[in-house]
């Protein structure tokens, strides 16, 4: 499969105009300037003159499938609000693969999402990284080789949810205490397991009443502490919902106390206020372009957030947190780029594409596999009708692992079983022109 004659935005700093992308066996075989190699017999060649090609968009913060549409009580599965330390939970187990929002996200050029539990709990549970192609269950959509990710939350949401229930936490200090207590337990849990493993490995003479030796029972498994122990070992990426600068600083203090790394703050509307700290500590930011004001901790959001973080040497990524916004993340990048430039921040179009692809790939720990158009990576590719940073750009062709999953000119039966018989009318002439 060869796409050529297009403007190729690689998210590596290189731009080929015109250039080509050669896909083979689900991977990118070659990307570069000009027309590319002569296609082999039987190869599909797409002449994409005037069009743009980018890596598939990666949304590191989505609730598709766990808060699906239609919004029914039967499918309200994103927040298990019975224990603020929900570390034993997995979004995978709530994910409804028939969510009609999935196909619409793909129509917006999105190929990978991080599905996270909600933010009502201090530890929301494990998220799951999904490749967007229609499958019957979350496990089959799981991005191959993606690391485990953990959703955590600070600030208003947990204390509001449990405040209503008259249970701790009801304050920010309550938030921090509950988390510290949980990590103290996780430290002991880790020690108990390490001690047991050490004893298992140590050969010793067996006595009939030996309770400490090889016959000793292992510590009881605890799903929540097991997950938190992975955090302490650095074997799960911490994705922390946090808006205010002071809340992020408190979170970093806690991470320091227990010796773990925060992979990314999500939402992080005040990240610009501490962008020097975040860049120094290698903590990424996943955020919107210009959302603000929906709650107190979102009051200081500004449209230059992504640009300022980038200028400071930090790693900024766009996220949607919304089944509507996920369809126009490309526009969000265009807007954030324009806002940054208007503020005098030097940015180029590749920076904006990185906000959509390479940086969210890093947030989810899949940067070695996707996020840039380079030979050897997975062939997650989008062909756009025009510059993807334009309001008018439409994803025309979307490939996941080299497979065409969306073709605007040939929209077939809906992916979702739920929409069978509902979306039965032909698409209008306008939309398919």
């Amino acid at each position, binding site marked *: 499969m060869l796409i050529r004659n297009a403007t190729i935005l690689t998210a590596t700093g290189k731009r080929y105009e015109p250039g080509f992308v050669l896909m083979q066996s689900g991977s990118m075989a070659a990307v570069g300037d000009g027309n590319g190699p002569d296609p082999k017999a039987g190869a599909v060649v797409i002449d994409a003159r005037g069009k743009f090609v980018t890596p598939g968009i990666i949304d590191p913060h989505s609730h598709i499938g766990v808060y699906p*549409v*239609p*919004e029914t009580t039967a499918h309200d599965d994103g927040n298990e609000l019975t224990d603020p330390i929900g570390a034993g939970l997995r979004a995978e187990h709530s994910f409804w693969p028939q969510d*009609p*929002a999935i196909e*619409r996200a793909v129509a917006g050029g999105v190929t990978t999402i991080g599905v996270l539990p909600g933010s009502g709990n201090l530890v929301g549970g494990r998220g799951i990284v999904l490749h967007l192609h229609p499958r019957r269950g979350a496990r089959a959509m799981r991005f191959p080789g993606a690391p485990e990710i953990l959703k955590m939350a600070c600030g*208003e949401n947990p204390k509001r949810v449990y405040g209503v229930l008259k249970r701790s936490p009801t304050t920010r200090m309550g938030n921090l205490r509950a988390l510290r207590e949980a990590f103290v337990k996780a430290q002991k849990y880790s020690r108990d397991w390490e001690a047991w493993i050490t004893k298992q490995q140590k050969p010793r003479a067996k006595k009939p009443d030996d309770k400490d030796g090889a016959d000793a029972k292992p510590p009881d498994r605890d799903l929540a502490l097991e997950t938190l122990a992975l955090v302490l070992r650095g074997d799960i990426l911490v994705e922390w919902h946090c808006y205010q600068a002071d809340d992020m600083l408190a979170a970093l203090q806690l991470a320091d106390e227990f010796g773990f790394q925060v992979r990314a703050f999500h939402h992080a509307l005040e990240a*610009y*206020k501490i*962008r*020097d700290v975040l860049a120094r500590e290698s903590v990424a930011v996943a955020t919107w372009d*210009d*959302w*603000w*004001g*929906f*709650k*107190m901790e979102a*009051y*200081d*959001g*500004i*449209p*230059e957030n992504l640009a*300022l973080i980038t200028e*400071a040497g930090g790693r900024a990524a766009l996220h949607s947190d919304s*089944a*509507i916004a996920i*369809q*126009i993340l490309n*526009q969000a990048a*265009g*807007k954030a*780029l*324009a806002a940054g430039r*208007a*503020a005098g921040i030097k940015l180029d179009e590749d920076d904006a594409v990185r906000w959509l692809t390479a940086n969210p790939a890093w947030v989810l720990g899949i940067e070695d596999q996707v996020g840039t158009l380079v030979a050897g990576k997975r062939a997650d590719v989008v062909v756009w009708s025009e510059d993807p*940073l*334009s*309001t*008018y*750009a*439409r994803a025309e062709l979307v490939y996941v692992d080299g497979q065409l999953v969306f073709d605007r000119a040939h929209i077939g039966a809906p992916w979702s079983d*739920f*929409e069978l018989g*509902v*979306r039965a*009318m032909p*698409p*209008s002439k*306008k*939309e398919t*022109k």
Partner: protein
Amino acid sequence: MRSRVLAVAIASVFARTASASAEEGPPVAILHARVYVPGDHPPLENATVVLASGKVQAVGINVPAPPGALTLDAHGKVLTPGFIDADTDVGVVDIQMEAAANDTDVRGGPMIPALRMIDGYNPRSALIPIARSGGVTSVVLAPRTHLLGGQSALVDLAGDSVAECVVRPALAQYAHVDEETVQETAGTRSGLWLMLREALEDARFYSTHKAQYDANAARWLRLNRQGLEALQPVLRGEQPLVVTAHRASDIEVALRLADDFKLKLVLEGASEAWMVADELARRKVPVVIDPLQDLPQRFDRLHARSDNAAILSGAGVPVVLSTFSAHQARLLWQRAGNAVRLGMEHDAAIRAITEAPADAFGLKGYGRIEPGAVGNVVLWSGDPLQTTTRVEHVFVRGREQPLETRQTLLLDRYRTLPLARDGSR
């Protein structure tokens, strides 16, 4: 770019007239602009627009700047009417999730037609300059909830007092017949329509039995006196009834209701309106929609689709585009741009946030640049619906407005780190 003459004059005008009425000040002549004019005409190139006494005084190619006018050379950039967001809470809410900072969701109901949104409007809200910075110069403050939610207002986004801002304190009446209201109120949609019919019938009865009512000799009526009074302009066809409904069959019921009571109908939400596009076009019923709402979010909008606006517009329905937002009313341009992306004509999308809302609500002189119209205009660096375009100048009632917002002040404060006040650390 702004001429030095104008820049200096603006500074002095703002310093001098903190409380003066918006219309004061010298005339303004905007030269060499690409001007969007009403109707199907293409934009005028290299045109002059003169603003005086708060209004558009002249528009044309060879119009001279009046003596003493402040001049602004647009260098070919785009001048549009100030955008009108037909359904917002700007100035009524500061922070959505803080009840004390949110006056959008009144308790009581389900029928409170006498409520006036204007009484909750705060002209000093931080949201107002932010909406303006997106080229929005007027908004409809619309009730969000309840079967009969009350009366909206039209305000211009400039001025220090409510009296100064308000254009129409009682613009339209709002009925919500969507899934949320059904669940909160009657439990079934037929039950909800029954309540609405009874309220309208009672209001009609009241209009011919006021003496008996005041003498306590009328039959029981579902609404209180204020409510019955508030529905009179609706029954007389003077005030539109804005019905929020999504399912196509609900829209059909709304049309029957409008026939039965001879109402002036405006539809909002209307996710499935495209399914009855021809009927809406025949009746010329304005439809206010958010073109980004393409999800089957609820069971009353399972047929929501991304080209609703394009289909309606193509069929000849008067389409109005809205953000239905407060904090993000500044993004009305992006809603219109997405309607274009999804198949609507570009000029129709511009009309859908200028002339169309003005016409839907009977706002003479709004949403158009023509002599006698209100002097609400915006100068853009390029195509107003494009991500790369910036708002360069905003005029409300003929006076230029500062583009400073709480957000630009935050940017200025944090433009370089560490802050001076952080000390030596």
